[in-house]
C-alpha cells in the first residue's frame, strides 16, 4: 500500500515537471540549442590544433640532409617555413617580433653525423606565450624530426606567457595512437559531454526546486503527504532525461559533423554518464537548499561550474597545474568523468581500466546526494 502511493506521488511530480518543461518553450529551446552552440564554439574556436605556424630556419650546415629536414617541416601542414635566418641574432629577432613562432637551428656537421649513422641534434625554439600551442608545436616538431632520425633538443623560449618549463616531455606515441591527427574536436567533444551534462542538470534541478520556493508553491507542497525524497526524485528524473537528450545530441553532432570517432562502447559511456549525473544532481540540490531565489540559484550553480571548467582538465592539463590545484582537481567529479569519457571515446577503454574513476564517481555521487537530501527540509524556516 505504501509503495504504490509513494510511486504515485513521484509520478505526479514528474508529470507536472514535464508539463512545465513543455509549456516553457524558451527554456526548452535553450536546452536544445545550447549544447550545439557550445559544441561549435569549443569545436572550432577553442582549438589547440596547429596549422601553418610561421617558422624560421637557421641552417648552419648547408648540406643536402639539412635542406631535406627543412623541406620535411615545410611539407607538413603544421609549419610554414617563411624565413631563413643568417645567424642566431636574426633568428631571435624573428621570434621576438612574433613574425615567426618557431625557430629551427640546424648546427654545422648535421649531415655528416647522420651519414655516420649517429644521432644528429637540431635545436628548436618555440614561442611559449601560448603554452597550448607551444606544446602542440613541440610535439609536431619532434615527430617530424624523429622521422628524420634526428633527436630534437627541446628548447623553448618563454616570452610573455607563463613559464613553460613545466611542459611535459614529448610522447610522440601517445598522440599517434589515440588522436593521430591531433584534432582538438576529438578531445573537446567528449569533454563537452561531461561539462554540459553537469551544467544542465545542476542548473535545471536547482532552479526547478528554488522556483517552487520563490513562487510560494513549496508551502502548498509541504502540507501534502509528499515526502522530501519523493519530491526530489520526481523533480530530478525529468531533468536527467533532458540532460541525456542533450548528451545524445552532442554525440550525434560530434560524430556526424565533427567526425569524432567513438572507439569504445556507447552503452558503457551512457551508463557511466548516468553515474556521473548523481554528483551533478547532488550539486544542483545542494544549491537549491542554499538559494532563496532563482537568480541566486543560477549564480551559485555558475560558481560551481567555473572550477569544473578550469580544474577538471577540461581545458588545461592537470599535470601542468601547481600542486594545490592538482589536489583541488581531485575534489571535482568532472575530473574523473573526463578521464572516463575521453578514455571511452578516444581510446576505447573498457570498465577494467576505468575502475578507479568509476569508484571515485560513485563515492562522490553518494556523498553529495546524501548531504543534499539531509539538508532538504520539508518545513518553512
Amino acid at each position, binding site marked *: 500500500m505504501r509503495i504504490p502511493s509513494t510511486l504515485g506521488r513521484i509520478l505526479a511530480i514528474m508529470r507536472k515537471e514535464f508539463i512545465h518543461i513543455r509549456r516553457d518553450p524558451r527554456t526548452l529551446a535553450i536546452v536544445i540549442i545550447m549544447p550545439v552552440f557550445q559544441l561549435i564554439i569549443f569545436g572550432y574556436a577553442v582549438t589547440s590544433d596547429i596549422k601553418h605556424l610561421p617558422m624560421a630556419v637557421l641552417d648552419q650546415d648547408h648540406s643536402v640532409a639539412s635542406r631535406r629536414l627543412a623541406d620535411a617541416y615545410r611539407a607538413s601542414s603544421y609549419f610554414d617555413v617563411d624565413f631563413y635566418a643568417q645567424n642566431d641574432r636574426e633568428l631571435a629577432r624573428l621570434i621576438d617580433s612574433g613574425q615567426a613562432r618557431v625557430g629551427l637551428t640546424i648546427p654545422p656537421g648535421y649531415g655528416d653525423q647522420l651519414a655516420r649513422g649517429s644521432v644528429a641534434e637540431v635545436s628548436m625554439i618555440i614561442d611559449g606565450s601560448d603554452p597550448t600551442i607551444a606544446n602542440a608545436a613541440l610535439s609536431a616538431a619532434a615527430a617530424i624530426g624523429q622521422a628524420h632520425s634526428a633527436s630534437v633538443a627541446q628548447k623553448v623560449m618563454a616570452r610573455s606567457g607563463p613559464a613553460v618549463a613545466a611542459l611535459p616531455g614529448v610522447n610522440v606515441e601517445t598522440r599517434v595512437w589515440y588522436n593521430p591527427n591531433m584534432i582538438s574536436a576529438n578531445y573537446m567533444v567528449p569533454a563537452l559531454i561531461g561539462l554540459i551534462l553537469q551544467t544542465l542538470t545542476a542548473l535545471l534541478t536547482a532552479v526547478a526546486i528554488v522556483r517552487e520556493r520563490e513562487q510560494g508553491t513549496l508551502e*502548498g507542497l509541504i502540507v501534502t503527504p509528499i515526502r522530501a525524497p519523493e519530491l526530489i526524485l520526481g523533480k530530478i528524473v525529468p531533468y536527467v532525461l533532458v540532460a541525456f537528450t542533450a548528451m545524445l545530441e552532442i554525440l550525434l553532432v560530434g560524430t556526424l559533423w565533427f567526425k569524432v570517432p567513438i572507439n569504445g562502447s556507447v552503452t558503457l559511456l551512457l551508463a557511466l554518464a548516468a553515474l556521473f549525473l548523481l554528483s551533478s544532481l547532488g550539486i544542483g540540490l545542494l544549491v537549491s537548499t542554499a538559494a532563496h531565489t532563482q537568480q541566486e540559484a543560477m549564480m551559485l550553480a555558475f560558481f560551481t561550474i567555473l572550477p569544473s571548467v578550469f580544474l577538471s582538465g577540461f581545458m588545461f592539463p592537470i599535470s601542468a597545474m601547481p600542486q594545490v590545484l592538482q589536489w583541488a582537481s581531485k575534489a571535482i567529479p568532472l575530473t574523473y568523468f573526463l578521464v572516463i569519457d575521453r578514455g571511452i571515446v578516444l581510446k576505447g577503454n573498457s570498465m577494467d581500466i576505468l575502475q578507479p574513476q568509476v569508484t571515485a564517481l560513485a563515492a562522490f555521487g553518494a556523498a553529495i546526494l546524501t548531504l543534499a537530501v539531509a539538508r532538504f527540509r520539508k*518545513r518553512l524556516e
Partner: protein
Amino acid sequence: MSDKLSAQPVIEATGLVRRFKNVVAVDGLHLSIARGEIFGLIGPDGAGKTTAIRLLAAVMLPNAGEARVLGFDTRRQAERIRRSVGYMPQRFSLYGDLTVRENLDFFADVFGVRGAERKRRIDELLGFARLTEFSTRRAANLSGGMQKKLALACTLVHAPEVMFLDEPTTGVDPISRREFWDILANLHVQGVTLFVSTPYMDEAERCSRVGLMYEGQIVECDTPDALRGQVPGELLSVWTAQVPKARAIVAALPGVLEVQTYGDVLHVFVEDAAILTPAIRDALAGAGAPAIDIQKTTPRVEEAFISLIQRRRKTERELGIGN
C-alpha cells in the same frame, strides 16, 4: 465515545512561541477550537497571524509550546495531520502554467485520491467552486477571485476535516469575496472545521468565534456578539464636513470615551447617548463645524476591534511598556 470525540478540541495550542531573528512573531499562543467551528483570526498586520497559522498547520516548527490538531502533535505527527488537514497559504501555490484541471489532478495524485474517486471529487469541486467551464484554462489566466477558488479547491481534494486558510480573500473583489465565503459556509455545513485569518472585519461577523491577535498573542477570543458587547458605552455616528476639526472638539468633551474616524463619519463612543447627542451638536455648531447628522448605531466587530486595540495601546503607554 462520540461524545468524547466531539468534546475533544480539534485544534489546541498551549504556550506556542515562534521567534525570528529580531522579533517574537508568536508569543505564547493559547487556543482551543471545537469541531465544526468557523474560527476567525483577526488582528493588525504583523500581529503574527500568518506565523500562528503556519505553526498550527505543522508547516513550521515552534520554538516552544505545543499544538495538537485532531489530537496529533504538530511536531512529531505532522505527516498524519497532513492526511486530514487542508492548508491554504496566503500566497497560494497554484502552478500558473498548468490548467485548472491539471492543478486539481496534481494535488489529487499527491494526496493519493485516485481512479473513479478522483474524477468524482474533482468534478464535484469544479462545480462547487463554479470553475467547471474554466477547467482547461491555465491558472495564470484566471482572475484573482477564481485563482483563490481554485486554490481552495486544490486544498480540498482529499476532503480534509480541518481547513486552515490564511487571508484567503485578500486582494479579491467584494463579489468574489462574498462568493468565497458562501463556499466556506457550505463547507461548514458539511462539518468541516475552519480556521480563517482575515483583515476584513465584515468577514469576522460570519465566524462562530473570533480571536483577536495582537503582538503575538490572542488578547480576546469570543463570539462576534460578545465582542461587540465589550465596547464601552454607546456608539454615535456623527456626519460632518470638517472631520479633523470636529474630531478634536468631540474628543475633548466630557463623557466621550473614544473617537474613531471612518471617511466623513466619526464613530464616537459615549457614556450616555441621550446626553451626549445634544452636547456634541451644540459644541460642533459653536465651533463652526456643524454636524450634518448624528445617529445612535450598533457597534460592529470592526469598532469593537479598534476600540480594544486602542485601549490596549493606551494601557501600555500608561504602564510604560511596549516599545
